């Protein structure tokens, strides 16, 4: 089932949770909604399910306008973050619930419902647990039961809200792999919400990165990681540092000093340079793009993390060096970015040349780091 979200806006009271969101989900796709809390990802999922109604905009299932349908008629499989299993029903009755509440005309027989429940239990690899009550199962088992229950109604789309959020790390990894296999086997169009980027990038065909009620970028893991569409995506996915720079006449300036950084294609004006720790080279003879004082060194698995304070503003930049290199605190290191991105600051508009004006445009985080 193809899903089309067309210019959807959602407000809670006067609080806008989603601004003008559009998204096409292909049939059979496994898609992740990724973002920090408050980004609107859960709201979007609940809108698709019909648990909330759009303030403006429409949601199409195929060619059909689902916004006009009640939640009961939408036929979506929704897996809740805390599973929402019915405590007073056995596992089999939980899974069969969606079939049992159908109107008499379309309701399968009791025997058929039982058969389907045990079939689904086999599918989620929990055979023989039909008679148990939810509280007799572990978290991971409950998660699978919740999934089986959602699948029992043969949903047109499967929606999962933070499906692994309440589980511990090991179970989480196993379930993740298992969900991917299950998806490949059943082919349901699947949307899941997560705040865990590793989960999103590893599991999903495409990732929708959201922030503050807007979609920042939609793409596969490579797109998102290698070509972040916005500073938000760059800093939200993976580790990064940033420096305020000024782009003028195709050249880059840092604290009024020209730095050797090819920025010919960049828009002129105050901008920010984003770099990842492992995309930075240390230059031995002081001929790097930036140089800074070592403020902290710590061992980090196979390598070593070095934190530098760069320029008179003391901007914090983290770099990764081989474990053999152990610079002394207070020593000066020269660095050159290997891969980077420059994003122009939005305001103020007009020609800005002075260092003072540049400082004013800095996001608060950089100031706080001084």
């Amino acid at each position, binding site marked *: 089932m193809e899903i089309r979200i067309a210019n959807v806006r959602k407000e809670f009271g006067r609080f806008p949770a989603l601004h003008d969101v559009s998204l096409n989900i292909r049939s059979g796709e496994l898609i992740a909604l990724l973002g920090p809390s408050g980004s609107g990802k859960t709201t979007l999922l609940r809108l698709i*399910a019909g648990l909330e109604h759009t303030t403006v905009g429409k949601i199409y299932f195929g060619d059909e306008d689902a916004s006009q349908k009640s*939640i*009961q008629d939408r*036929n979506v499989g929704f897996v*809740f973050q805390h599973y929402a299993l*019915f405590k*007073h029903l056995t596992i089999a009755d939980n899974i069969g*619930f969606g079939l049992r509440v159908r109107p008499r005309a379309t309701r399968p027989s009791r025997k058929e419902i039982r058969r389907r429940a045990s079939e689904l239990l086999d599918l989620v690899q929990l055979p023989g647990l039909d008679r148990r009550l939810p509280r007799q199962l572990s978290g991971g088992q409950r998660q699978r039961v919740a999934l089986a229950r959602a699948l*029992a109604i043969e949903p047109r789309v499967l929606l999962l809200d933070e499906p692994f959020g309440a589980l511990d790390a090991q179970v989480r990894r196993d379930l993740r792999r298992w969900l991917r296999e299950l998806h490949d086997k059943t082919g349901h169009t699947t949307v899941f919400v997560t705040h865990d980027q590793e989960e999103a990038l590893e599991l999903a065909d495409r990732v929708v990165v959201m922030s503050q009620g807007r979609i920042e970028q939609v793409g596969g893991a490579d797109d998102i990681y290698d070509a972040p569409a916005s500073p938000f995506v760059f800093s939200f996915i993976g580790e990064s540092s940033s420096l305020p720079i000024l782009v003028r006449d195709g050249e880059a300036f840092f604290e009024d000093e020209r730095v050797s950084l090819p920025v010919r294609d960049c828009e002129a004006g105050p901008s920010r340079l984003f770099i990842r720790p492992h995309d930075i080279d240390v230059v031995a003879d002081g001929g790097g793009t930036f140089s800074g004082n070592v403020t902290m060194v710590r061992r980090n698995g196979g390598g070593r993390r070095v934190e530098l304070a760069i320029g008179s503003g003391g901007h914090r930049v983290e770099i990764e060096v081989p474990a053999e290199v152990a610079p002394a605190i207070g020593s000066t290191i020269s660095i050159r970015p290997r891969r980077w991105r420059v994003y122009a600051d939005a305001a103020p508009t007009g020609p800005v040349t002075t260092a003072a004006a540049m400082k004013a445009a800095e996001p608060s985080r950089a100031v706080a780091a001084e």
Partner: protein
Amino acid sequence: MARTLTQSRFRKPSVIPGFGLTFGFAVTYLSLIVLIPIAALILKSASVGWDEFWRIATDGRTLAALRTSFGLSLIAALVNMFFGLILAWVLTRYRFPGRRLIDAMVDLPFALPTAVAGIALGSLYAVNGWIGGFFDFRITYTAIGITIALIFVGLPFVVRTVQPVLEDLDKELEEAAATLGAGRWKTIFRVILPPLLPAVLTGFALAYARAVGEYGSVVFVSQGIPYRNEIAPQLIVIKLEESASYGPAAVIATVMLALAFLLLLCINLLQAWGRRRFGSAG
């Protein structure tokens, strides 16, 4: 004393002082005020002899009074169960002007002396009263009047046992039922009400037990005509007044007490069952 108790197997050791003093005082006080007097009651009723006990307990008037007490209390408790459930639902789920006032008012029967409730209900439902005037049949001095008084005294129980459970009920359960295709009524009957059941039954049993023992408000709405609408506590008072020996009153009281204990036992079993089945009870 406290030292020796610390070593005993009766309680686990603890650094906190005062067990001997507080435990001793509490048990002594409990014995003097409650246990010994109740033991005296049972002793007294036993002292009349088995045949006499049976004769008093199965006397027509006694049985009629017990039937009136337990029967009307059952009706009152059922009414309270039904309306109590609606009240608890409305108070937890809906927001409307005056909700807090209604919520606070529910406890009125706990705070208002039964004599005050009795005299007010008695006058309100009298043939020339504010409400009684609307009906062309008698309410006070009849079983209906007694039932109304019993509804009053038992009103808060179901509301107050169901309310916290309803508040804790995860909204996601209802959403899950909706996504699985269940309509609102099916959701209510298959998803919401089953977990409420232990709390509802507990509240029902408490309201029932309270109504069975009620005396203060009933005497204002019913004089108690033997064999017709005399309640058991009324009969106990009459037996106490008319008989020089306390035997008959003690026998009826013992029977009532036994039935009340049965109810208490039911409450405890219900709560235990609810905790086993649903993780929590009211």
